[in-house]
């Protein structure tokens, strides 16, 4: 059991290393879509940024972190909207049964075509709890929760800014990733989208910066992104037909390997 715990800790440390540079330091409901507010329900839960559209959404995501089969995240999420109100809920599992964890997430908010704000909450629980251990005796030793918020606003035609604070408050077991405030902005014109993001320093580290570009052609969106600390890049593709979308993204890390994300779902205008 001690070896399993050490392995788990190592996995979490690795994930934390990755998280400092992953897209929006995403975690349990990571999606292969562009940063910022998206129609995907998982993205809403992940960052607290409600989608502009009010249509129903259902999506499933799969993420393999750094090519490690023992670090896979599988998530399903659904969302709905009525007038200004938006809600989403989801479930995810990360890792293997003996050292992974399960998470449920919920998000709610209000949104208009030119802005929105949302609240998100995620609760996690270890999948395997050894009988007689401290985790078995105390809930706060085997489970944790975090609450955060996000907001976005259209500053001008084609120009949008957002702020996401996924972990304003947390309790119990510390989240696998420390996700500080992330601010971002994007500019879209004639099918070309450019974006910049900045994640505030986490602990003693420096701030993370990211940049990317996406090109839309019909129902296809192709994107590339770069991040610093260490410098690395990624690319992805989003294809949609009617309300169905498929998204895939690969991010390469110079030391830790490649992270692959796949998403499939039903939503409105997915980017």
């Amino acid at each position, binding site marked *: 059991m001690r070896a399993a715990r050490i392995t788990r800790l190592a996995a979490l440390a690795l994930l934390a290393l990755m998280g400092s540079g992953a897209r929006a330091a995403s975690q349990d409901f990571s999606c292969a879509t562009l940063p910022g507010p998206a129609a995907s329900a998982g993205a809403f839960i992940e960052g607290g940024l409600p989608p502009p559209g009010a249509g129903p959404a259902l999506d499933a995501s799969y993420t393999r972190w750094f090519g490690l089969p023992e670090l896979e995240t599988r998530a399903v999420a659904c969302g709905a909207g009525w007038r200004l109100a938006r809600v989403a809920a989801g479930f995810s599992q990360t890792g293997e049964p003996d050292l992974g964890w399960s998470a449920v997430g919920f998000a709610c908010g*209000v949104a208009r075509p030119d802005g929105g704000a949302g609240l998100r909450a995620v609760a996690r629980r270890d999948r395997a709890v050894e009988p007689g251990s401290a985790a078995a005796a105390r809930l706060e030793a085997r489970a944790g929760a975090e609450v955060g918020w996000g907001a976005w606003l*259209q*500053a001008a035609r084609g120009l949008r800014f957002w*702020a996401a*604070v996924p972990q*304003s408050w947390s309790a119990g077991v*510390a989240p696998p990733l420390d996700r*500080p405030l992330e601010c971002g902005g994007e500019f879209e014109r004639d099918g070309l989208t450019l974006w910049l993001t*900045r994640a505030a320093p986490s*602990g003693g580290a420096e701030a993370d910066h990211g940049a990317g570009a996406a090109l839309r052609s019909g129902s296809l969106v192709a994107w590339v992104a770069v991040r610093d600390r260490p410098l690395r890049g990624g690319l992805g593709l989003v294809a949609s037909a009617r309300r169905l979308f498929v998204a895939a993204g690969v991010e390469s890390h110079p030391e830790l390997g490649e992270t692959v994300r796949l998403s499939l779902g039903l939503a409105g205008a997915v980017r």
Partner: protein
Amino acid sequence: MTRAASSAARAAALLRAPGSAALLAPGRAALCARALVAAVLAALLFAAAARAQLAPDSTGYAEPPPEEPEGADYEVESADSLAEGAIELGLGASGRVGARPRQTRRVRFNDRTLGGSVREGEGDPLAGGSIETGALAGRVGVGRLAPRWGRGLLLGAAAEPWSAAASDRGAGAPFRGRAGRGAWYRLGEGGALETLYGRFAKRDLTGGRARAGPFGFGALADRAGHAQASLSFCRGRAEHELALDRAGRWRAEAALERTAGPLTLAARVRGGLAGLRSLAEPLRSGPARTLALELRDDAPWGHVRAQAALWRFAPGRGGARAALEVRRRFDQHGSLAVGFEERHGTHRESGRVPGFRQGAWGEWRGAAAGLALALRHEVLGAERLGRTAVRTVTAARLELEGPAGSGLRITHCVYRVRSGESLYLIETASDRVILRAVSGTGRRTRVEVRAPGAGGHLNAALEVPGVAGARSSEATRPRWTLDWTRRARSR
């Protein structure tokens, strides 16, 4: 460009004004050159850029006044006015989770002849009262005293060497500061004759001031026989003051402001002896010598403000500052602002000397129907271009408007402050503004809710500090505030 060249020439002429040479002790020539360059650059910017409006809550780097201890929270009363015939009641409580709460109560009223306020609460730094009424053909009052005479050489000095006027002294200031406690009497329109008796800086003082046309003469004395006098002249936008004491020590300050269309140039020169310290506010005496310039450009699209200042408290202790702020307005609520600031030496009369500091900040604000979002980032470094950062702050603020005057505001900031430095985060409560001192590395989320209730308005705030996963401690315990305010007509 003609206007720019003219502005630059005026700035350069003011820098070369008599008295400024005395400021330029050996080793200060480089500072002067930088200030001159900053002024010229600012003037060129005015020519190239357009016009704007400075948001009243533009902050830059917020700091408490010099009489307050560094690194401690500072609270100051907001100077919102009360309509005639109105009475305001307020009840409040605040504290940390797991600690004993602090309760506050306040009453304010304003009638035709009688006005005043009373605040009480254990540990409330703003506790106390003041009352004023009409008497003897004038107005008489008892309680808090925060007067301002002339340029403030004796009473009501600005908190910072580069500030033209105190924000918490005198009538019309946006905050009600506390220089002392006592009684005052004012006769005539605008205070042609003014007397006061009170306790300032652990000293009982008696003083009086008379004004005749543009001239004003005032004197202050304490029980030990110390006395100071002030002679001032104020006409239009020009204001000058000469202050001296019985030992012959003196200080003089001249402030001028000229407007040409949307462009305003303000200049301030102070000279004198370091030995003259205000009897009433010795910790706010400020530098003995100062040269300050400010250029403002107000235009429909935004606002530009440039400042340059040199000062010296005493030989070997002085400083300089240059700052530039440009704010571009997009619509009624949206704006983008960027600012730059460089400091040398120290702006405090005692304590450590921070030395060189250079920093910049940027802020974006936008709003849609019922929703507002603001993002801000600032960095201050000990080397050029903000390198070797001594403090870095990133903040996001969300505001949602609800029905019947209700609303929600969430502010989150992430900060990193180097050991020995202080950072003050601004909190606005219903009756006060708090500069919350923080240090080290951390985050803070502040949630504020306002709603109508019990015939008044209820404001609640919850502040969650700390980092996810951090161990619980006194500093990471949530802090909360509850406040209820009701205004009514007394007749």
